[in-house]
């Protein structure tokens, strides 16, 4: 009986370790520029894309959201955007939804910019900038990672080369959970 209890304890410890390993990526395994957040609830977000279709973050429960804030006047945003477009096909049928939010620009400006830099993307348009104000990214560009429960888990600081292996592995780890 004592042996059975000891085995049960070992099993529970191991299960806990495995569970921990699959629910969080250790800080030292995060690629450069990715910051762990405290898991606070994501602010609301409901905007239309360039086709006038509404997207609501509430509908994204159950999968991860890569939520990227950008503006066409921001140099690093311009550089980063093609790297986002490059990873979209790899995550099309996964539990990662890639969502872009343009901050405070007109649809014409967004359309013109995206048409040249990343024509495969269809960003949401935060025309008066108020949704971005609510989210308060640390600057532009910025990418939040919202978990399947609607909580903020990670923030990418500034522009990142998403097509590079370190970032692709990070995204794959998220979607493998």
């Amino acid at each position, binding site marked *: 009986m004592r042996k059975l209890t000891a085995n049960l304890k070992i099993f529970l410890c191991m299960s806990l370790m495995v569970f921990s390993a699959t629910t969080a990526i250790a800080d030292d395994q995060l690629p450069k520029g990715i*910051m762990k957040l405290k898991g606070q609830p994501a602010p609301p977000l409901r905007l239309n894309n360039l086709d006038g279709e509404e997207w609501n973050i509430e509908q994204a429960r159950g999968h991860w959201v890569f939520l990227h804030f950008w503006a066409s006047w921001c140099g690093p*945003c311009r550089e980063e955007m093609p790297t986002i477009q490059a990873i979209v096909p790899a995550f099309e049928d996964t539990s990662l939804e890639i969502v872009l939010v343009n901050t405070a620009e007109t649809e014409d400006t967004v359309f013109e910019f995206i048409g040249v830099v990343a024509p495969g993307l269809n960003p949401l348009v935060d*025309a008066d900038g108020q949704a971005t104000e609510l989210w308060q990214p640390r600057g*532009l560009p910025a990418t939040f990672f919202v978990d399947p429960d609607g909580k903020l888990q990670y923030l990418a*600081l500034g522009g990142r080369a998403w097509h590079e292996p370190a970032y692709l592995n990070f995204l794959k780890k998220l979607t493998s959970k």
Partner: protein
Amino acid sequence: MCLNNNPQSAFYDFNRACKTNMNKPWLTIRHYGLLLILSVSAITAYAAQEAPAAQEAPLEYEDNDVYMRLVIRSKDQLSAFYVGRGFPQNAIDEILKTCFITPLVRNKTLDALWVEPDSWSFIGDNQPIARIKRDYWDKPWKDTGLSLAHQSTFGWTLMPETRDLRIDEGVGGTIAIPMQETPFTLKARFNTGLNKEGKAKIIEFKDITCAN
């Protein structure tokens, strides 16, 4: 000028340069003579004008802990940036009444580096110069009827009021002070450590001039 990587932007990438398509030899050798003549003419014409508007000497500092650069843009450059973003002229006039400097800071420590413009001091003629804070702009924007979208864009181009820069993180943005006729000094103080427990760092830039 590369407007899309304008250091005026709050999010200017220090290492980024404007890219041009270098694959195609769009100039042949016979074009170079003409280009040379045009360049010499342009330089001569430029030299005949008044002194350049923007500060010429680079205001730059770097050590093992921090990289910092101050960019001073001319009124024409400032104006061009906001015109390009669709700002109305009356709002641009308000911006041009003040002296804009654009500090760019990168954290090179292995800990947090705090950027807090409130702990920076501007000194001119041995007198402190009060920084124009973010809430100052509420009234001119109300008076000029600046749209929320433009107010938001303007806000994103300002230096954050506080930012705990993480390892290798950078930040840039504009800081406004009242227009100065004479050179002034900036003493930028940075706390270090996640809880500001580290040794503070002070970087001083002298002889800064507002853009003409």
